[in-house]
Protein backbone atom coordinates (compact mmCIF):
# COMPACT_ATOMS: atom_id res chain seq x y z
CA UNK A 1 0.00 0.00 0.00
CA UNK A 2 1.18 3.51 -0.62
CA UNK A 3 3.25 5.11 2.12
CA UNK A 4 1.00 8.09 2.23
CA UNK A 5 -2.14 6.12 3.06
CA UNK A 6 -3.93 7.58 6.07
CA UNK A 7 -4.21 5.85 9.41
CA UNK A 8 -7.70 4.51 9.86
CA UNK A 9 -7.40 2.71 13.19
CA UNK A 10 -5.10 3.75 15.97
CA UNK A 11 -4.58 1.84 19.21
CA UNK A 12 -2.64 3.82 21.74
CA UNK A 13 -1.19 2.29 24.88
CA UNK A 14 -4.25 0.20 25.56
CA UNK A 15 -4.11 -1.83 28.75
CA UNK A 16 -6.73 -4.22 30.06
CA UNK A 17 -6.68 -5.46 33.64
CA UNK A 18 -9.25 -7.76 35.26
CA UNK A 19 -8.87 -7.85 38.98
CA UNK A 20 -5.32 -9.06 39.36
CA UNK A 21 -4.99 -10.38 35.84
CA UNK A 22 -3.32 -8.35 33.10
CA UNK A 23 -4.80 -9.38 29.77
CA UNK A 24 -3.17 -6.59 27.78
CA UNK A 25 -0.34 -4.60 29.28
CA UNK A 26 0.51 -1.96 26.68
CA UNK A 27 -0.67 -2.28 23.14
CA UNK A 28 0.10 0.31 20.50
CA UNK A 29 -0.25 -0.06 16.77
CA UNK A 30 -1.90 1.44 13.69
CA UNK A 31 -3.73 0.22 10.69
CA UNK A 32 -3.66 2.24 7.51
CA UNK A 33 -6.52 2.51 5.08
CA UNK A 34 -6.62 -0.32 2.58
CA UNK A 35 -4.20 -2.58 4.43
CA UNK A 36 -4.70 -6.17 5.34
CA UNK A 37 -3.07 -6.51 8.76
CA UNK A 38 -2.63 -9.73 10.68
CA UNK A 39 -2.54 -9.76 14.48
CA UNK A 40 -0.81 -12.87 15.66
CA UNK A 41 0.61 -14.18 18.87
CA UNK A 42 0.62 -17.23 21.09
CA UNK A 43 -2.54 -18.24 22.91
CA UNK A 44 -3.35 -15.99 25.81
CA UNK A 45 -1.40 -13.12 24.30
CA UNK A 46 -4.46 -10.91 24.44
CA UNK A 47 -5.69 -10.92 20.86
CA UNK A 48 -9.37 -11.53 21.49
CA UNK A 49 -9.30 -9.05 24.35
CA UNK A 50 -7.83 -6.53 21.94
CA UNK A 51 -10.68 -7.14 19.53
CA UNK A 52 -13.25 -6.83 22.27
CA UNK A 53 -11.81 -3.53 23.39
CA UNK A 54 -11.58 -2.10 19.89
CA UNK A 55 -15.18 -2.97 19.10
CA UNK A 56 -16.62 -1.88 22.40
CA UNK A 57 -17.50 -5.25 23.90
CA UNK A 58 -15.05 -4.66 26.68
CA UNK A 59 -13.68 -1.58 28.31
CA UNK A 60 -9.98 -0.94 28.45
CA UNK A 61 -8.39 0.01 31.75
CA UNK A 62 -6.35 2.73 30.10
CA UNK A 63 -5.34 3.86 26.65
CA UNK A 64 -7.27 4.99 23.66
CA UNK A 65 -8.66 3.62 20.44
CA UNK A 66 -9.26 5.97 17.56
CA UNK A 67 -11.13 5.11 14.44
CA UNK A 68 -11.11 7.68 11.68
CA UNK A 69 -10.40 10.25 14.36
CA UNK A 70 -13.39 9.18 16.51
CA UNK A 71 -12.48 8.25 20.08
CA UNK A 72 -14.11 4.89 20.64
CA UNK A 73 -13.80 4.78 24.41
CA UNK A 74 -17.19 4.49 26.02
CA UNK A 75 -19.02 3.92 22.77
CA UNK A 76 -21.40 1.02 22.63
CA UNK A 77 -20.64 -1.83 20.24
CA UNK A 78 -23.58 -1.05 17.99
CA UNK A 79 -22.49 2.57 17.71
CA UNK A 80 -18.99 1.50 16.73
CA UNK A 81 -20.42 -0.83 14.13
CA UNK A 82 -22.40 2.01 12.66
CA UNK A 83 -19.23 4.03 12.32
CA UNK A 84 -18.07 1.40 9.89
CA UNK A 85 -15.84 -0.71 12.13
CA UNK A 86 -17.37 -4.17 12.06
CA UNK A 87 -16.19 -7.42 13.60
CA UNK A 88 -16.91 -11.09 13.18
CA UNK A 89 -16.89 -13.68 15.91
CA UNK A 90 -14.77 -16.74 16.27
CA UNK A 91 -17.47 -19.09 17.48
CA UNK A 92 -21.14 -18.50 16.86
CA UNK A 93 -20.93 -16.40 13.73
CA UNK A 94 -24.48 -16.82 12.51
CA UNK A 95 -28.06 -16.76 13.73
CA UNK A 96 -28.40 -20.51 13.65
CA UNK A 97 -32.16 -20.79 13.57
CA UNK A 98 -32.67 -18.36 10.74
CA UNK A 99 -32.14 -18.91 7.07
CA UNK A 100 -29.02 -17.67 5.33
CA UNK A 101 -31.09 -15.02 3.60
CA UNK A 102 -32.66 -13.86 6.84
CA UNK A 103 -29.22 -13.71 8.39
CA UNK A 104 -27.98 -11.29 5.78
CA UNK A 105 -31.22 -9.36 5.92
CA UNK A 106 -30.67 -8.93 9.65
CA UNK A 107 -27.17 -7.70 8.97
CA UNK A 108 -28.63 -5.08 6.68
CA UNK A 109 -30.50 -3.63 9.61
CA UNK A 110 -28.77 -0.28 9.49
CA UNK A 111 -29.62 0.21 5.84
CA UNK A 112 -33.33 0.16 6.48
CA UNK A 113 -35.23 3.37 5.97
CA UNK A 114 -38.57 2.82 7.62
CA UNK A 115 -39.68 3.63 11.15
CA UNK A 116 -42.27 2.10 13.48
CA UNK A 117 -45.26 3.88 11.94
CA UNK A 118 -44.23 2.83 8.47
CA UNK A 119 -44.17 -0.71 9.73
CA UNK A 120 -47.51 -0.65 11.47
CA UNK A 121 -49.30 1.06 8.62
CA UNK A 122 -47.43 -0.88 5.97
CA UNK A 123 -46.64 2.28 4.12
CA UNK A 124 -45.13 2.49 0.71
CA UNK A 125 -41.81 3.44 2.27
CA UNK A 126 -41.84 0.24 4.28
CA UNK A 127 -42.50 -1.89 1.24
CA UNK A 128 -39.90 -0.24 -0.93
CA UNK A 129 -37.34 -0.34 1.85
CA UNK A 130 -37.93 -4.05 2.32
CA UNK A 131 -37.51 -4.60 -1.42
CA UNK A 132 -34.23 -2.72 -1.37
CA UNK A 133 -32.98 -4.73 1.56
CA UNK A 134 -33.93 -8.00 -0.12
CA UNK A 135 -32.06 -6.96 -3.27
CA UNK A 136 -29.04 -5.94 -1.25
CA UNK A 137 -29.11 -9.24 0.62
CA UNK A 138 -29.13 -11.21 -2.62
CA UNK A 139 -26.23 -9.19 -3.90
CA UNK A 140 -24.17 -9.91 -0.82
CA UNK A 141 -24.97 -13.58 -1.08
CA UNK A 142 -23.74 -13.55 -4.67
CA UNK A 143 -20.58 -11.71 -3.61
CA UNK A 144 -19.65 -14.40 -1.13
CA UNK A 145 -20.88 -17.20 -3.34
CA UNK A 146 -23.66 -18.59 -1.18
CA UNK A 147 -26.71 -17.60 -3.20
CA UNK A 148 -27.70 -21.23 -3.63
CA UNK A 149 -27.99 -21.67 0.12
CA UNK A 150 -30.20 -18.67 0.69
CA UNK A 151 -33.22 -20.58 2.00
CA UNK A 152 -31.46 -23.01 4.29
CA UNK A 153 -31.14 -22.65 8.03
CA UNK A 154 -27.74 -21.20 8.75
CA UNK A 155 -27.05 -23.58 11.59
CA UNK A 156 -27.08 -26.72 9.47
CA UNK A 157 -24.54 -25.49 6.96
CA UNK A 158 -20.98 -26.79 7.05
CA UNK A 159 -18.75 -24.90 9.41
CA UNK A 160 -16.73 -23.23 6.67
CA UNK A 161 -19.86 -21.84 5.06
CA UNK A 162 -21.12 -20.57 8.39
CA UNK A 163 -17.97 -18.49 8.70
CA UNK A 164 -18.67 -17.13 5.22
CA UNK A 165 -22.13 -16.11 6.35
CA UNK A 166 -20.53 -14.43 9.32
CA UNK A 167 -18.50 -12.36 6.92
CA UNK A 168 -21.62 -11.66 4.86
CA UNK A 169 -23.27 -10.36 8.00
CA UNK A 170 -20.36 -8.04 8.59
CA UNK A 171 -20.33 -6.88 4.97
CA UNK A 172 -24.02 -6.07 5.21
CA UNK A 173 -23.21 -3.34 7.71
CA UNK A 174 -21.25 -1.60 4.94
CA UNK A 175 -17.97 -1.50 6.84
CA UNK A 176 -14.97 0.61 6.01
CA UNK A 177 -12.94 -1.73 8.18
CA UNK A 178 -13.42 -5.37 9.07
CA UNK A 179 -12.09 -7.12 12.14
CA UNK A 180 -12.02 -10.86 11.58
CA UNK A 181 -11.61 -13.05 14.66
CA UNK A 182 -9.89 -16.29 13.64
CA UNK A 183 -11.88 -16.50 10.40
CA UNK A 184 -10.41 -19.74 9.11
CA UNK A 185 -10.07 -21.64 12.38
CA UNK A 186 -11.48 -25.09 11.90
CA UNK A 187 -11.53 -24.80 8.12
CA UNK A 188 -9.88 -27.32 5.84
CA UNK A 189 -7.50 -26.49 2.98
CA UNK A 190 -10.17 -25.99 0.36
CA UNK A 191 -12.35 -23.82 2.57
CA UNK A 192 -9.34 -21.76 3.60
CA UNK A 193 -8.34 -21.18 -0.01
CA UNK A 194 -11.87 -20.11 -0.87
CA UNK A 195 -11.84 -17.76 2.08
CA UNK A 196 -8.55 -16.22 1.07
CA UNK A 197 -10.02 -15.46 -2.38
CA UNK A 198 -12.97 -13.78 -0.72
CA UNK A 199 -10.68 -11.74 1.49
CA UNK A 200 -8.75 -10.53 -1.52
CA UNK A 201 -12.01 -9.56 -3.19
CA UNK A 202 -13.11 -7.64 -0.11
CA UNK A 203 -9.78 -5.88 0.19
CA UNK A 204 -9.88 -4.96 -3.48
CA UNK A 205 -13.23 -3.30 -2.91
CA UNK A 206 -11.57 -0.88 -0.53
CA UNK A 207 -12.31 -2.36 2.88
CA UNK A 208 -9.44 -2.29 5.38
CA UNK A 209 -8.95 -5.58 7.18
CA UNK A 210 -7.48 -6.53 10.53
CA UNK A 211 -7.49 -10.19 11.32
CA UNK A 212 -6.49 -12.39 14.20
CA UNK A 213 -5.37 -15.82 13.13
CA UNK A 214 -3.27 -18.82 14.06
CA UNK A 215 -3.02 -20.28 10.58
CA UNK A 216 0.42 -18.97 9.64
CA UNK A 217 0.53 -19.84 5.95
CA UNK A 218 -2.80 -18.10 5.46
CA UNK A 219 -1.64 -15.05 7.39
CA UNK A 220 1.62 -14.84 5.49
CA UNK A 221 -0.22 -15.11 2.20
CA UNK A 222 -2.97 -12.63 2.78
CA UNK A 223 -1.51 -9.88 4.95
CA UNK A 224 0.52 -6.85 3.89
CA UNK A 225 1.75 -6.38 7.40
CA UNK A 226 1.84 -8.39 10.58
CA UNK A 227 1.69 -7.29 14.18
CA UNK A 228 2.83 -9.72 16.84
CA UNK A 229 1.35 -9.66 20.32
CA UNK A 230 2.81 -11.47 23.29
CA UNK A 231 2.01 -11.09 26.97
CA UNK A 232 -0.20 -8.17 26.17
CA UNK A 233 2.28 -6.07 24.25
CA UNK A 234 3.43 -5.74 20.68
CA UNK A 235 6.79 -7.38 20.26
CA UNK A 236 7.25 -7.02 16.51
CA UNK A 237 5.71 -5.42 13.44
CA UNK A 238 6.50 -5.66 9.78
CA UNK A 239 6.11 -7.43 6.49
CA UNK A 240 5.48 -11.18 6.59
CA UNK A 241 8.99 -12.10 5.56
CA UNK A 242 10.54 -9.98 8.30
CA UNK A 243 8.27 -11.43 10.96
CA UNK A 244 8.98 -14.97 9.96
CA UNK A 245 12.67 -14.49 10.60
CA UNK A 246 12.31 -12.28 13.64
CA UNK A 247 14.09 -13.99 16.59
CA UNK A 248 11.79 -12.46 19.20
CA UNK A 249 8.76 -13.83 17.45
CA UNK A 250 10.27 -17.25 17.10
CA UNK A 251 11.15 -17.23 20.76
CA UNK A 252 7.62 -16.20 21.70
CA UNK A 253 6.14 -19.09 19.81
CA UNK A 254 8.69 -21.67 20.73
CA UNK A 255 8.32 -20.69 24.32
CA UNK A 256 4.76 -21.99 24.13
CA UNK A 257 5.65 -25.25 22.50
CA UNK A 258 5.55 -26.12 18.82
CA UNK A 259 3.15 -24.08 16.73
CA UNK A 260 2.12 -24.52 13.14
CA UNK A 261 4.45 -22.28 11.22
Amino acid at each position, binding site marked *: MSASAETILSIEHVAVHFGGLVAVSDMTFDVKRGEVVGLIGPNGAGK*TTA*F*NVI*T*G*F*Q*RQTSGEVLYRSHRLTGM*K*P*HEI*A*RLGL*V*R*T*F*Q*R*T*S*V*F*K*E*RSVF*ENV*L*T*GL*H*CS*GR*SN*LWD*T*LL*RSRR*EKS*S*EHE*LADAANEILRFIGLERRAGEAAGILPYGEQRLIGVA*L*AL*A*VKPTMLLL*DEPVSGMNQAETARFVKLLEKISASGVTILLVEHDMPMVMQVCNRIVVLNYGRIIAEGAPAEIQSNPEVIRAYLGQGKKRA
Partner: protein
Amino acid sequence: MSRYFGWLLVAFLASVPLWMHDFYFLHVLITTGIFIIAAMSLNLLLGYTGQLSLGHVAFFGIGAYTSALVSLGFQIHVLPDFTIGLAPKPAWFAMLAAVAVAGLTGYAIGKLSFRVRGAYFVIVSISFAEVVRLVAVNWVELTQGPMALNNIPVLRLGAGPLELSFLRKPEFYLLVLAVAVVCYVVIARLVNSRAGRAMIALRENESLATSVGIDVTHYLVLATVVSAAIAGVAGALYAHYIRIVDPDIFLFIYTVTMVIMVITGGKGTLAGPIVGGALFGFVPEILRAMEIEPELQWVVYGVLMILVVYFLPRGIVPAIGGYFSGQKSGGTAEAATTAAEPVQK
Protein backbone atom coordinates in the same frame (compact mmCIF):
# COMPACT_ATOMS: atom_id res chain seq x y z
CA MET B 1 -50.79 -20.24 7.33
CA SER B 2 -52.26 -18.68 4.28
CA ARG B 3 -53.82 -15.32 4.75
CA TYR B 4 -57.16 -16.49 3.53
CA PHE B 5 -57.38 -19.06 6.24
CA GLY B 6 -56.89 -16.33 8.79
CA TRP B 7 -59.64 -14.13 7.43
CA LEU B 8 -61.95 -17.10 7.02
CA LEU B 9 -61.39 -17.95 10.64
CA VAL B 10 -62.18 -14.39 11.67
CA ALA B 11 -65.35 -14.41 9.59
CA PHE B 12 -66.38 -17.68 11.19
CA LEU B 13 -65.69 -16.35 14.64
CA ALA B 14 -67.61 -13.19 13.89
CA SER B 15 -70.63 -15.24 12.99
CA VAL B 16 -70.73 -17.05 16.32
CA PRO B 17 -73.22 -14.74 18.07
CA LEU B 18 -75.65 -15.40 15.27
CA TRP B 19 -75.98 -19.05 16.02
CA MET B 20 -74.59 -19.45 19.53
CA HIS B 21 -77.21 -18.46 22.02
CA ASP B 22 -75.68 -20.05 25.08
CA PHE B 23 -74.55 -16.98 27.00
CA TYR B 24 -72.29 -18.96 29.23
CA PHE B 25 -70.38 -20.21 26.24
CA LEU B 26 -70.10 -16.65 24.95
CA HIS B 27 -68.77 -15.67 28.36
CA VAL B 28 -66.08 -18.31 28.09
CA LEU B 29 -65.21 -17.08 24.61
CA ILE B 30 -64.96 -13.53 25.84
CA THR B 31 -62.68 -14.29 28.77
CA THR B 32 -60.61 -16.62 26.63
CA GLY B 33 -60.36 -13.90 24.00
CA ILE B 34 -59.16 -11.38 26.56
CA PHE B 35 -56.55 -13.81 27.77
CA ILE B 36 -55.47 -14.53 24.22
CA ILE B 37 -54.84 -10.83 23.64
CA ALA B 38 -52.76 -10.76 26.81
CA ALA B 39 -50.92 -13.91 25.74
CA MET B 40 -50.17 -12.43 22.32
CA SER B 41 -48.65 -9.43 24.01
CA LEU B 42 -46.51 -11.60 26.25
CA ASN B 43 -45.45 -13.62 23.25
CA LEU B 44 -43.96 -10.52 21.68
CA LEU B 45 -41.69 -10.04 24.66
CA LEU B 46 -41.13 -13.64 25.66
CA GLY B 47 -41.32 -15.42 22.36
CA TYR B 48 -39.98 -13.02 19.80
CA THR B 49 -37.60 -10.94 21.85
CA GLY B 50 -36.62 -13.77 24.15
CA GLN B 51 -37.01 -11.92 27.41
CA LEU B 52 -38.28 -14.00 30.26
CA SER B 53 -40.46 -11.33 31.78
CA LEU B 54 -42.60 -12.82 34.51
CA GLY B 55 -44.24 -9.62 35.62
CA HIS B 56 -46.50 -9.25 32.65
CA VAL B 57 -49.72 -9.28 34.63
CA ALA B 58 -48.66 -5.88 35.96
CA PHE B 59 -49.37 -4.30 32.58
CA PHE B 60 -52.67 -6.10 32.31
CA GLY B 61 -53.69 -4.92 35.75
CA ILE B 62 -52.46 -1.38 35.19
CA GLY B 63 -54.56 -1.25 32.06
CA ALA B 64 -57.59 -2.50 33.97
CA TYR B 65 -57.15 -0.11 36.86
CA THR B 66 -56.43 2.87 34.64
CA SER B 67 -59.50 2.29 32.56
CA ALA B 68 -61.62 1.76 35.63
CA LEU B 69 -60.30 4.81 37.45
CA VAL B 70 -60.57 7.13 34.48
CA SER B 71 -64.13 6.10 33.77
CA LEU B 72 -65.15 6.23 37.42
CA GLY B 73 -63.25 9.34 38.31
CA PHE B 74 -61.07 9.58 41.39
CA GLN B 75 -59.62 11.96 43.91
CA ILE B 76 -56.47 11.52 45.93
CA HIS B 77 -54.70 13.52 48.58
CA VAL B 78 -51.19 14.24 47.46
CA LEU B 79 -50.65 16.46 50.47
CA PRO B 80 -52.88 16.78 53.54
CA ASP B 81 -54.99 19.52 51.97
CA PHE B 82 -54.09 19.22 48.33
CA THR B 83 -55.95 16.79 46.17
CA ILE B 84 -55.64 15.71 42.61
CA GLY B 85 -58.80 14.55 40.97
CA LEU B 86 -60.26 13.50 37.71
CA ALA B 87 -63.90 13.65 36.74
CA PRO B 88 -65.33 10.51 35.18
CA LYS B 89 -64.62 10.21 31.49
CA PRO B 90 -66.36 8.15 28.83
CA ALA B 91 -65.28 4.55 28.75
CA TRP B 92 -63.72 4.69 25.31
CA PHE B 93 -61.47 7.51 26.48
CA ALA B 94 -60.62 5.54 29.59
CA MET B 95 -59.58 2.58 27.49
CA LEU B 96 -57.29 4.71 25.37
CA ALA B 97 -55.83 6.15 28.54
CA ALA B 98 -55.27 2.61 29.74
CA VAL B 99 -53.27 1.76 26.63
CA ALA B 100 -51.19 4.90 27.02
CA VAL B 101 -50.49 4.41 30.72
CA ALA B 102 -49.67 0.74 30.27
CA GLY B 103 -47.34 1.60 27.42
CA LEU B 104 -45.63 4.29 29.45
CA THR B 105 -45.19 1.90 32.33
CA GLY B 106 -43.68 -0.53 29.88
CA TYR B 107 -41.27 2.15 28.78
CA ALA B 108 -40.20 2.96 32.32
CA ILE B 109 -39.90 -0.63 33.42
CA GLY B 110 -38.13 -1.57 30.22
CA LYS B 111 -35.53 1.15 30.55
CA LEU B 112 -34.85 0.18 34.15
CA SER B 113 -35.13 -3.57 34.03
CA PHE B 114 -32.94 -4.27 31.09
CA ARG B 115 -29.91 -3.19 33.01
CA VAL B 116 -29.96 -6.67 34.42
CA ARG B 117 -30.15 -9.85 32.48
CA GLY B 118 -30.88 -13.51 32.71
CA ALA B 119 -32.15 -14.89 35.96
CA TYR B 120 -31.83 -11.53 37.65
CA PHE B 121 -34.14 -9.99 35.07
CA VAL B 122 -36.73 -12.65 35.79
CA ILE B 123 -36.65 -11.81 39.46
CA VAL B 124 -36.81 -8.07 38.88
CA SER B 125 -39.82 -8.52 36.66
CA ILE B 126 -41.63 -10.60 39.25
CA SER B 127 -40.73 -8.10 41.94
CA PHE B 128 -42.13 -5.16 39.98
CA ALA B 129 -45.43 -6.93 39.56
CA GLU B 130 -45.60 -7.77 43.23
CA VAL B 131 -44.84 -4.20 44.25
CA VAL B 132 -47.60 -2.98 41.95
CA ARG B 133 -49.97 -5.49 43.51
CA LEU B 134 -49.11 -4.39 47.01
CA VAL B 135 -49.62 -0.77 46.01
CA ALA B 136 -53.03 -1.67 44.64
CA VAL B 137 -53.87 -3.38 47.92
CA ASN B 138 -52.59 -0.64 50.19
CA TRP B 139 -53.24 2.64 48.39
CA VAL B 140 -56.85 2.44 49.33
CA GLU B 141 -57.62 6.05 48.61
CA LEU B 142 -56.95 5.50 44.94
CA THR B 143 -57.77 1.89 44.32
CA GLN B 144 -60.21 1.00 47.09
CA GLY B 145 -57.80 -1.76 47.96
CA PRO B 146 -59.38 -5.16 48.46
CA MET B 147 -62.81 -3.58 48.43
CA ALA B 148 -62.41 -3.25 44.70
CA LEU B 149 -63.52 -0.72 42.16
CA ASN B 150 -67.14 -1.42 41.43
CA ASN B 151 -69.73 -0.41 38.90
CA ILE B 152 -67.27 0.36 36.21
CA PRO B 153 -69.24 2.01 33.41
CA VAL B 154 -70.19 0.16 30.30
CA LEU B 155 -68.40 1.02 27.11
CA ARG B 156 -70.61 3.09 24.87
CA LEU B 157 -69.76 4.43 21.46
CA GLY B 158 -71.62 6.94 19.42
CA ALA B 159 -74.57 8.96 20.66
CA GLY B 160 -78.32 9.16 20.51
CA PRO B 161 -79.97 6.69 18.18
CA LEU B 162 -76.62 5.49 16.86
CA GLU B 163 -75.29 4.53 20.23
CA LEU B 164 -73.60 1.18 20.55
CA SER B 165 -73.56 -0.14 24.04
CA PHE B 166 -71.30 -3.03 24.90
CA LEU B 167 -73.21 -4.37 27.80
CA ARG B 168 -74.55 -7.62 26.50
CA LYS B 169 -72.37 -10.54 25.72
CA PRO B 170 -72.80 -10.79 21.96
CA GLU B 171 -71.72 -7.19 21.43
CA PHE B 172 -68.84 -7.49 23.82
CA TYR B 173 -67.71 -10.68 22.18
CA LEU B 174 -67.51 -8.91 18.82
CA LEU B 175 -65.61 -6.08 20.45
CA VAL B 176 -63.06 -8.50 21.88
CA LEU B 177 -62.77 -10.22 18.52
CA ALA B 178 -62.18 -6.90 16.76
CA VAL B 179 -59.54 -5.81 19.25
CA ALA B 180 -57.87 -9.21 19.04
CA VAL B 181 -57.67 -8.98 15.25
CA VAL B 182 -56.19 -5.49 15.42
CA CYS B 183 -53.61 -6.59 17.97
CA TYR B 184 -52.74 -9.62 15.92
CA VAL B 185 -52.18 -7.50 12.83
CA VAL B 186 -50.04 -5.04 14.77
CA ILE B 187 -47.87 -7.82 16.13
CA ALA B 188 -47.67 -9.61 12.80
CA ARG B 189 -46.56 -6.51 10.99
CA LEU B 190 -44.04 -5.73 13.68
CA VAL B 191 -42.38 -9.11 13.79
CA ASN B 192 -42.16 -9.39 10.04
CA SER B 193 -40.43 -6.08 9.69
CA ARG B 194 -36.90 -4.82 10.13
CA ALA B 195 -37.69 -4.10 13.79
CA GLY B 196 -38.96 -7.63 14.20
CA ARG B 197 -35.79 -9.04 12.69
CA ALA B 198 -33.81 -7.01 15.18
CA MET B 199 -35.85 -8.38 18.08
CA ILE B 200 -35.44 -11.94 16.92
CA ALA B 201 -31.75 -11.34 16.35
CA LEU B 202 -31.24 -10.17 19.87
CA ARG B 203 -33.13 -13.18 21.13
CA GLU B 204 -30.94 -15.52 19.16
CA ASN B 205 -27.57 -13.97 19.81
CA GLU B 206 -27.28 -10.63 21.47
CA SER B 207 -23.60 -10.04 20.82
CA LEU B 208 -23.98 -10.86 17.16
CA ALA B 209 -26.97 -8.54 16.92
CA THR B 210 -24.98 -5.74 18.49
CA SER B 211 -22.11 -6.31 16.13
CA VAL B 212 -24.28 -5.57 13.10
CA GLY B 213 -25.31 -2.26 14.55
CA ILE B 214 -28.56 -3.20 16.28
CA ASP B 215 -29.22 -1.10 19.36
CA VAL B 216 -30.28 -3.87 21.67
CA THR B 217 -31.67 -1.73 24.45
CA HIS B 218 -33.77 0.28 22.03
CA TYR B 219 -35.47 -2.82 20.68
CA LEU B 220 -35.92 -4.39 24.08
CA VAL B 221 -37.69 -1.28 25.24
CA LEU B 222 -39.74 -1.08 22.05
CA ALA B 223 -40.87 -4.66 22.49
CA THR B 224 -41.77 -3.95 26.09
CA VAL B 225 -43.76 -0.83 25.25
CA VAL B 226 -45.81 -2.50 22.52
CA SER B 227 -46.24 -5.59 24.64
CA ALA B 228 -47.34 -3.55 27.65
CA ALA B 229 -49.75 -1.45 25.61
CA ILE B 230 -51.48 -4.50 24.21
CA ALA B 231 -51.66 -6.11 27.64
CA GLY B 232 -53.17 -2.84 28.82
CA VAL B 233 -55.87 -3.10 26.18
CA ALA B 234 -56.68 -6.57 27.40
CA GLY B 235 -56.90 -5.26 30.94
CA ALA B 236 -59.16 -2.42 29.90
CA LEU B 237 -61.47 -4.83 28.11
CA TYR B 238 -61.56 -6.94 31.24
CA ALA B 239 -62.44 -3.94 33.38
CA HIS B 240 -65.39 -2.95 31.22
CA TYR B 241 -66.62 -6.49 30.92
CA ILE B 242 -66.46 -7.82 34.44
CA ARG B 243 -66.91 -4.28 35.69
CA ILE B 244 -65.21 -4.99 38.99
CA VAL B 245 -61.47 -4.69 39.45
CA ASP B 246 -59.59 -5.71 42.58
CA PRO B 247 -55.91 -6.24 43.45
CA ASP B 248 -56.16 -9.95 42.83
CA ILE B 249 -55.85 -9.10 39.18
CA PHE B 250 -52.13 -8.72 39.84
CA LEU B 251 -51.60 -12.17 41.22
CA PHE B 252 -48.59 -14.00 39.92
CA ILE B 253 -50.78 -16.91 38.97
CA TYR B 254 -52.21 -14.90 36.08
CA THR B 255 -48.77 -14.26 34.71
CA VAL B 256 -48.18 -17.96 34.98
CA THR B 257 -51.38 -18.61 33.06
CA MET B 258 -50.25 -16.34 30.27
CA VAL B 259 -46.83 -17.95 30.24
CA ILE B 260 -48.36 -21.40 30.02
CA MET B 261 -50.52 -20.29 27.11
CA VAL B 262 -47.59 -18.87 25.21
CA ILE B 263 -45.22 -21.73 25.88
CA THR B 264 -47.59 -24.57 25.16
CA GLY B 265 -48.98 -22.84 22.10
CA GLY B 266 -45.58 -22.05 20.75
CA LYS B 267 -43.54 -19.03 21.69
CA GLY B 268 -42.24 -16.98 18.85
CA THR B 269 -45.06 -17.96 16.53
CA LEU B 270 -48.09 -15.84 15.71
CA ALA B 271 -50.58 -18.65 16.11
CA GLY B 272 -49.00 -20.02 19.26
CA PRO B 273 -50.67 -17.78 21.85
CA ILE B 274 -54.00 -18.26 20.12
CA VAL B 275 -53.76 -22.02 20.29
CA GLY B 276 -52.38 -21.92 23.81
CA GLY B 277 -54.98 -19.42 24.90
CA ALA B 278 -57.80 -21.45 23.44
CA LEU B 279 -56.47 -24.58 25.07
CA PHE B 280 -56.19 -23.05 28.49
CA GLY B 281 -59.43 -21.17 28.06
CA PHE B 282 -61.37 -24.31 27.37
CA VAL B 283 -59.55 -26.91 29.41
CA PRO B 284 -60.80 -25.39 32.68
CA GLU B 285 -64.33 -25.60 31.37
CA ILE B 286 -63.93 -29.21 30.36
CA LEU B 287 -62.40 -30.05 33.69
CA ARG B 288 -65.16 -28.20 35.47
CA ALA B 289 -67.73 -30.14 33.49
CA MET B 290 -65.99 -33.27 34.66
CA GLU B 291 -66.43 -31.88 38.15
CA ILE B 292 -62.79 -31.83 38.99
CA GLU B 293 -61.75 -29.63 41.86
CA PRO B 294 -60.11 -26.32 40.94
CA GLU B 295 -56.91 -27.31 42.72
CA LEU B 296 -56.64 -30.46 40.71
CA GLN B 297 -57.25 -28.44 37.57
CA TRP B 298 -54.15 -26.49 38.37
CA VAL B 299 -52.29 -29.69 39.01
CA VAL B 300 -53.28 -30.72 35.51
CA TYR B 301 -52.00 -27.44 34.07
CA GLY B 302 -48.74 -27.79 35.92
CA VAL B 303 -48.24 -31.31 34.67
CA LEU B 304 -49.25 -30.27 31.15
CA MET B 305 -46.73 -27.49 31.24
CA ILE B 306 -43.95 -29.79 32.31
CA LEU B 307 -44.89 -32.35 29.68
CA VAL B 308 -44.99 -29.76 26.92
CA VAL B 309 -41.63 -28.41 27.92
CA TYR B 310 -40.17 -31.90 27.78
CA PHE B 311 -41.81 -33.34 24.71
CA LEU B 312 -42.81 -30.37 22.63
CA PRO B 313 -40.27 -27.82 23.74
CA ARG B 314 -41.19 -25.44 21.00
CA GLY B 315 -44.91 -25.73 21.62
CA ILE B 316 -47.85 -27.14 19.78
CA VAL B 317 -47.92 -24.94 16.70
CA PRO B 318 -44.30 -25.54 15.64
CA ALA B 319 -44.75 -29.24 16.36
CA ILE B 320 -47.73 -29.39 14.04
CA GLY B 321 -45.95 -27.26 11.48
CA GLY B 322 -42.95 -29.54 11.67
CA TYR B 323 -45.10 -32.59 11.30
CA PHE B 324 -46.62 -31.30 8.12
CA SER B 325 -43.36 -30.34 6.53
CA GLY B 326 -41.97 -33.75 7.32
CA GLN B 327 -39.25 -32.57 9.61
CA LYS B 328 -38.59 -34.09 12.95
CA SER B 329 -39.71 -31.69 15.60
CA GLY B 330 -39.46 -31.68 19.33
CA GLY B 331 -36.39 -33.24 20.84
CA THR B 332 -34.14 -31.45 23.23
CA ALA B 333 -34.75 -27.83 23.85
CA GLU B 334 -32.48 -25.63 21.83
CA ALA B 335 -29.95 -23.87 23.95
CA ALA B 336 -30.14 -20.15 23.49
CA THR B 337 -27.14 -19.24 21.40
CA THR B 338 -25.14 -16.49 22.89
CA ALA B 339 -21.73 -15.77 21.45
CA ALA B 340 -19.27 -17.63 23.61
CA GLU B 341 -16.90 -14.73 23.60
CA PRO B 342 -17.07 -11.15 23.81
CA VAL B 343 -17.66 -10.33 27.36
CA GLN B 344 -20.95 -8.53 27.53
CA LYS B 345 -20.63 -5.12 29.07
